[in-house]
Every structure is written in structure tokens, then in C-alpha cells.
């Protein structure tokens, strides 16, 4: 998104002032509305489609496979595809590695089937269009897809070390997967102010960006900074990181609730 010099300085001044004015009048902690479709892919165990109010859109599918967890301990695997970006582009690779790290906070005990076997979840993300940095959209997508995931019900024995047998499943009964999926938030730093969920024009004038992850009531690693644009990026006061974490701490619970109680 290219903006004119006058637009940029107008936006920057209004975002940097105290009290700040966001171009769409939102509060510092307010998100733009989103729409969610869940569980719409018939061949996936769980799926979601998220549409943001600026037209950004993302589809997430969760598929499960039974693996021997003594051989393959990595039970969650995220693949991200961003339309218009190469698979080896910086943004795709950094998002993929971020989510593979973030999802380690999920307790893999929930995926265990028997003493020997576990479900391995393959989370495929397709970002159809994104106007601003897509990380928080993807994380909302993964969150609601995991919440809508249902896995086949085990009917065979849990203890399969003594009696060697392969896991057997019920013909049609499914068990909902209950995991504490993490959320990831993008914050924009403008001078001494920090904003949650920056829109495209806000990202364009931001001095810096902050990625904060959250899971189960508390902020978790990784926390990262990102450059939201190529022209305006500067250093910032480290106290703003604290402020950002506090902001996420305060409001993430409410967002998780809104995403769960659909």
C-alpha cells in the first residue's frame, strides 16, 4: 500500500498524539470485526475460514494421522501458504516458523491414543488475501479450526505395549479435540503509543511492530518485533514491550472467549 507524504504525516501525527486518534476511530485495544465459518471442509477433521472486515481472508484445515510417537515426537505441523508470495519468501517462512514454535505450547498428551500411538495434526493454512500483516488472522483461523476439530473415537485398548495391536476406531463416533490453542497478536508501535490489530494504513506509518503470543491466560514465548513497513521503521522505547504485553494480557481472554462462543 502506497500512501502520499501528506497522508502519512496526517496518520502518523494522529496516531502519535495523546490521546491518539486511529483512522477508523477504534480504541487502542479494539479489533476490527471478523466473520468465521467453521467445519466446512468435509474431508478435514477440522476447518475454519476467517474473513476480516478489510477483505483479508484465510482458510485453515486440520487433518489427523496416526503415528508412532516414539518415532515421530513432532505431533503438530503447520504449513502456511500466502497467495501472491513464494513458498520460500521471507513472510511465508517466518510465519511458518513462528506458528510451529507457538503451537509447541499445546499439550501433546491430548493427542495421545495409546501408549505407542498418537494423532499427528497437520494444520494447513491458506491466506487468500491479506491487506495487513496476516499473523493474527492466521492465529484466529488456527484457533477456531482446532476448536472445531473432531477426531475418531478409539475403541481398542489404551495399553498396547503388552498386547501388540493397532489402534481401532469407532465407525462414526467422533470425539471433539480439547486443546488450549494459542493466539498470536500483532501490535503496532507509533512513537510512544501502541495499538492492537493495525490496519493497512496504520501499518504503513508504524515505527515498529510487535508479535505477542498468548495461551491459556498468560503471555507466552515467542515475543518478536517485526518491521511493518520499509520506510518508517525505527527503534522504540523498551517499556512499550511491557505495555504491549499488558494490553494483550488484559484483552486476550475476551477474544478467546469471543472466538470460542460462536
Amino acid at each position, binding site marked *: 500500500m502506497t500512501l*502520499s507524504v501528506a497522508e502519512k*504525516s496526517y496518520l502518523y*501525527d*494522529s496516531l502519535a498524539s495523546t490521546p491518539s*486518534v486511529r483512522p477508523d*476511530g477504534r*480504541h487502542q485495544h479494539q479489533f476490527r470485526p471478523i*466473520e*468465521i465459518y467453521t467445519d*466446512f471442509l468435509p474431508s478435514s477433521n477440522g476447518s475454519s475460514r476467517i474473513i476480516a472486515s478489510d477483505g483479508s481472508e484465510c482458510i485453515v484445515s486440520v487433518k489427523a494421522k496416526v503415528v508412532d510417537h516414539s518415532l515421530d515426537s513432532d505431533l503438530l505441523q503447520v504449513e502456511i501458504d500466502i497467495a501472491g508470495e513464494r513458498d520460500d519468501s521471507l513472510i511465508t517462512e517466518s510465519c511458518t516458523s513462528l506458528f510451529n514454535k507457538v503451537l509447541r505450547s499445546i499439550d501433546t498428551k491430548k493427542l495421545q491414543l495409546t501408549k505407542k500411538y498418537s494423532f499427528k495434526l497437520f494444520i494447513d493454512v491458506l491466506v487468500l488475501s491479506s491487506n495487513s500483516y496476516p499473523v493474527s488472522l492466521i492465529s484466529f483461523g488456527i484457533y477456531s479450526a482446532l476448536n472445531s476439530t473432531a477426531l475418531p473415537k478409539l475403541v481398542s485398548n489404551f495399553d498396547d505395549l503388552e498386547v501388540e495391536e493397532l489402534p481401532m476406531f469407532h465407525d462414526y463416533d467422533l470425539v471433539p479435540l480439547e486443546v488450549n490453542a494459542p493466539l498470536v497478536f500483532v501490535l503496532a508501535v507509533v512513537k510512544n503509543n501502541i495499538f492492537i490489530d493495525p490496519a493497512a494504513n496504520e501499518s504503513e506509518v508504524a515505527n515498529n511492530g510487535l508479535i505477542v503470543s498468548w495461551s491459556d491466560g498468560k503471555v507466552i514465548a515467542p515475543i518478536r518485533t517485526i518491521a511493518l513497513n520499509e520506510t518508517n521503521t525505527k527503534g522504540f522505547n523498551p517499556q512499550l514491550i511491557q505495555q504491549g504485553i499488558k494490553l494483550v494480557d488484559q484483552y486476550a481472554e475476551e477474544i478467546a472467549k469471543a472466538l470460542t462462543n460462536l
Partner: protein
Amino acid sequence: MSEVISVVSRNGAFQKTMIMEEFSSDESEDDYNMTGSEDEEEGEEGAEKSSSKPTSKKSSKNIDSELMTPGELITSDPIWMRGHGTYFLENDTYSSVAGRVSKVNKLLSVIPLKSRYAPETGDHVVGRIAEVSNKRWKVDIGGKQHAILMLGSVNLPGGILRRKSESDELQMRSFLKEGDLLNAEVQSLFQDGAASLHTRSLKYGKLRNGQFCQVPNSLIVRSKNHTHNLPGNVTVVLGVNGYIWLRMTSSMDLARDAPPGGSTQVSGGEASGRAAGPTGAVSLNPNASLSITRLEEESSWKIYSDENDASITNQLKQTISRYANIIKALAFCEVGITHERIVLGYEASLAYSDVGALIQRDNMEALGADVLNAERMRGNAE
């Protein structure tokens, strides 16, 4: 509803054939009826209401004003010439877009309901510079092609209308560079449908002191005037192409609206502060009112300045954000955007003291309904 985020759960038509239908949770069922179907047929229904004679039978005599969907058979009569928005298979003519059938003599075409902006001579548009090339700028106006702004059709700094010189050619980027927003008029159209723009009036030129906002171009109604002063010291430039600029009202905006006789009085008070127009033009005679037609007024370098007015208060920025949200809400409700409706929307929006509340879906719908209602009460509904 949460103040932090509003999440709407939806079910689309693509979920209808799902084999999991029985397993899906019960509350999504009625949700499907409410939102899913609306989602799919919103555009059609809206247009059907406005179409004068919605007919379902497909007699070739009554195909005018009929609404077509892509792939729908228009006629199997071979006498028609096939125009834009149609295709044919074995003498049958089908629509390739969603829109209304138009017949001119024996030419049959379908005019799409929504499309990219098609420029017409005389349109007041807002555009963004996409490229600086030889003696011209390429301007993004949301059309199929970039519009052309020739170096000769802008006001050159340094005074009275003068011819462009070689030094102007070399410093084109100091007038307008990539990303700059400007308003202009479509001067003429090229053979291929691209627009040629001009800014040879002081009401056109670089845009400053405000915020950009975009809506579908089909929602902007062509009218005599596209620059309007709004309550709260805000001026809106409604580009016919759907690009909208909201800015602080300048003294020139005030002078334009004032009656011709009393204009000196109006601008007298204003001019003492700053006699600058929206595009930065300065009157040679500080006592005289600024007029957009008097081109002898000096068009200094200021008309290409990138500096915003330092006197814009936070209060005013709030108001501009409010107007931006109102315009987005009107666009969300698929209501045509006019000066009157923006003002009605502003009055209705004052019920929400928090500007950020206007981005919520329910509030946008309520605002759209309020505007249409108020319009009906005042008796000037279409």
C-alpha cells in the same frame, strides 16, 4: 457483544451439501437461513428491488431491464449483435456477467452491477499517482487502465498560466510523485477507454489535510457538485470512481459555498488567518476572496506542498474518522452515497459517542437503516 472484538459465525451456501449436515451443531441451522442465504443473494435482491420490472419469464421481447446472472440464457434469437458482457454458443446468447440487459438498436449487451470504474468526460475523480513517465503521470483511478495526466494539463508553479518548459519535465517528481493523491477532472477519453485527466482549476490538485477512504464506484451518484462542506468543519471530495477524500474545510471551500455577493464578508474573517485554498493556492490580493475560477491568482509551489496544516485538532481528526466510518457503513448497506445521506448519517451517528463503535456490523446496519428512514421522513426519498 464484546467491546474488543466482534465475531460473527456464519454458514455459507458452500456448506449446504456437506455430508456432515446431521452432525453440525443445532444453532448453526437457523444461522444458515438468516445469514447464509442473505450472503448469497444480497446483491441480487437489492438490485431486483430497484429494477423497474423484474420479470421471470424469458420472452425475447421483455429482455430489457431484466436482471441476468453469469451463464444465463438471454435469447436464442440470432438477430441480435452480441455486445459486452455476453457470449454465445450455437446461436444462443448468454450473459457473462451479473447485470442488466441493455439494447441499443440491434446491439445486445449486459451492463454489470459492479465493475471497475469506467471514466466519462467531465467526471470528478480522485486518483493516486502510480507512475511518473515521459511528460505524463499515470494515475490509478480504479479503472481498467491507469489514467493519464499530461504535464501540460496541470497548473505549473510560478504564476500565471504558462507553457511547460524543459525544466518542468526534469522536475516532475517535485510536483507529483508516486503515491500522491490528487483530485482531477476527466478531460477526454482515449481510443482504448483510458482517461486523460486535467487539474487546470484551483479546485483540483494535490490533496492534503485529511484521510482517504474507498467505496465501490457504483455507489457514487454522478452530480453537479462532488465537493461538499459537511457539519463539523469537514469537506468531502466524492470521486465518481469511488475514491473519497475527507479533509479539514479550507477557506476556499467556504468561499465556494458562500453566495456570490456575500463572499467577501465570509472570507474576510477567514482570510485574515490564512488565505490558502485546499490545494495551497494563495490569493495575490489578501483582501479579495479566493475564487476557483480566477486563475491569475498565483499558483505557487505551495500547491504541490506535502505539508499538512498544523492547526488540525484531534477533535477534528475524530470527526474525520467518524465521517470515514459513516461512509463505510453506507457502503456496507449498499446505499448510494450522496451529500445529504452523509449529513443524515452524521446526525444519526451522534448517538454513538464512541467513533470506534461504528465499525461494528450491527451499528453499521442500524446507521444505514436510520439514514434511509430519515430520508423517507423528509420526503426526499428516491
